[in-house]
């Protein structure tokens, strides 16, 4: 398995390389001058040129790419165009933990709710329960995420006052776990709903697949109770494809954070990205895009490893 893991890791390297090329390429397609936004229209022309010179905006594209990549490999993402003098890595390190926390918690919620639902749906195939779960999942897929978020804020935060309207913690209050959880519940829930629906559908079909397998018949023929058959023999097998699905869902999960963080004022990289996008802060946009893609690659890597842990058939 070690060799399998090492191979997966090595495989990720060219992927990351391609990711940087694509990100950089996109940025360079931008027609506008990034300095336009931040410049006082009354700036002296010499100053503008000096400024562009100082930020290397006039160099050859390849030179810019190599410089950027080289710096990035050393953890130096450069500096924000807007927030002069602030290393982007500072911005990222301040924001990333929030995003990761949100994602971990919401994926946990998604798992906790949707996998059992999917399993129930599969074992009670074509029953009323199955139809209800299916319908609700479809509803979940079809409802715009941000809409759920806004409604929840209006109802639970503004009208009922049960939850804060946003942010990671109450400002100025001393740190408390409860306070953090209190702030986390709504955004995590909304982020979870988006993928919960899909995950329920996937775990249903994965479980249905498993329940059709011969070894399930074997277990039944051995006289095991239905619940034993489903959980001991079915569940783990059903879980394996879901792990892969989870890896595949990661991009949409991280993508969803853009919206959720915007709605809930959650200071993660998604919000940073939106801010940067509106300000055309290219170095920040690039950095976040690369980080987000890297997160996906790393997440997939973890999924692969998890896969190998759960599935003894993976040995090489």
């Amino acid at each position: 398995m070690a060799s399998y893991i090492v191979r997966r890791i090595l495989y990720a390297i060219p992927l990351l390389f391609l990711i940087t090329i694509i990100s950089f390429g996109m940025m360079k397609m931008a027609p506008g001058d990034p300095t336009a936004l931040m410049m006082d229209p009354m700036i002296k022309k010499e100053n503008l040129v000096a400024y562009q010179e100082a930020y290397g905006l006039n160099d050859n594209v390849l030179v810019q790419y190599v410089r950027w990549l080289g710096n990035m490999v050393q953890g130096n993402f450069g500096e924000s165009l807007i927030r002069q003098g602030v290393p982007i890595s500072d911005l990222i390190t301040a924001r990333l933990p929030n995003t990761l926390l949100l994602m971990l918690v919401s994926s946990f919620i998604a798992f906790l709710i949707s996998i059992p639902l999917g399993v129930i749906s599969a074992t009670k195939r074509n029953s009323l329960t199955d139809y209800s779960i299916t319908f609700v999942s479809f509803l979940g897929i079809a409802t715009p995420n941000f809409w759920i978020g806004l409604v929840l804020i209006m109802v639970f935060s503004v009208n009922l006052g049960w939850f804060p309207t946003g942010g990671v913690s109450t400002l100025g209050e001393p740190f408390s776990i409860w306070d953090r959880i209190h702030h986390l519940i709504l955004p995590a829930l909304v982020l979870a709903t988006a993928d919960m629906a899909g995950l329920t559908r996937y775990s249903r079909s994965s479980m249905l697949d498993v329940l059709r397998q011969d070894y399930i018949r074997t277990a039944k023929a051995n006289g095991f109770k239905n619940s034993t058959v489903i959980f001991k023999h079915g569940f783990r097998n059903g879980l394996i494809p879901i792990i892969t699905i989870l890896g595949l869902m990661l991009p949409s999960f991280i993508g969803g954070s853009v919206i959720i963080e915007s709605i809930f004022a959650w200071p993660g990289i998604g919000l940073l990205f939106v801010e940067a996008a509106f300000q055309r802060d290219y170095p920040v946009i690039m950095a976040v895009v690369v980080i987000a893609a890297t997160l996906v690659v790393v997440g997939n890597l973890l999924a692969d490893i998890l896969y190998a842990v759960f599935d003894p058939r993976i040995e090489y």
Partner: protein
Amino acid sequence: MTLPNQVEFTNRPTLLEDHQLQPHDSIWRVMLRKYMSNKLAVIGAILLFIIIGSALFAPWLAPQDPSKQVLLDKLSPPGDKYILGADNLGRDTLSRLLYGARVSLLVGFASVAGSIFIGTVIGAVAGYYGGKLDAVLMRFVDAVISFPSLFLLITLVTIFEPSLMTLIAVFAIFGWTGTARLVRGEFLSLRSAEFVLAARTLGIRNSRIIFSHILSNAMGPIIVSATLGIGGVILAEAALSYLGLGIQPPIPSWGNMLQSAQNPQVMLGAWWYPLFPGFMILITVLAFNFVGDGLRDAFDPKIND
């Protein structure tokens, strides 16, 4: 001339008697039967039919010019004058919904058509020829897929300005990866299917094998993913609209109609305004999903009941 040994076969007249052959079903009819047995899929198809129909006939169905503003009537509730109320500029919501359907569906269909095309070509090439080409193409797909799509969409939309054409292009350019993987998978498995081998041994040309033998059999999953993809694009456009990066007003799309209702004032005071575009998005995406699900079952040879 008579064939030698034909006598051998004359004692088999019953071979093809009707009770031996299953009722003369075309594949399409079999699929239709499977499809019709999925209630939700049938409902979805009916809904889509209505939605697409009303989009096509919007100019005849719309009670008013969708861009006609009566500022004094802004945020009128549903009633006689405005069946579904009026928006924040006093425009008729129903008319805008109908015209918005055209835009939302156009974006959905056009961008999915584009991404299906790109994805199919790349997936087919990778899957059929395999080897190094496949490896390179798939690495590229992996890399593109690693970008959370919303990040890509936002980046590109901010770079290129969110016009109708850019949105379609951006959705198409980054929506193809799923199809590419899917098509590649189909090609890989169909490439070694016995009927393809048979076609090769018969000297059928590669191009014909790809199109007539492999692609026609991979069409099912492609259509399914396209169906689901349209729903996805409509949702994504709405999400972009939320950030103000979707289809730009005054062209009405359901996404930007919903977006202009993102305002506590509206949400509390004029609930009908965000309700209807939201509902249309929901229903349409739901319908596409139902249809996709039904098609998936219909195309799946494994599921026979």
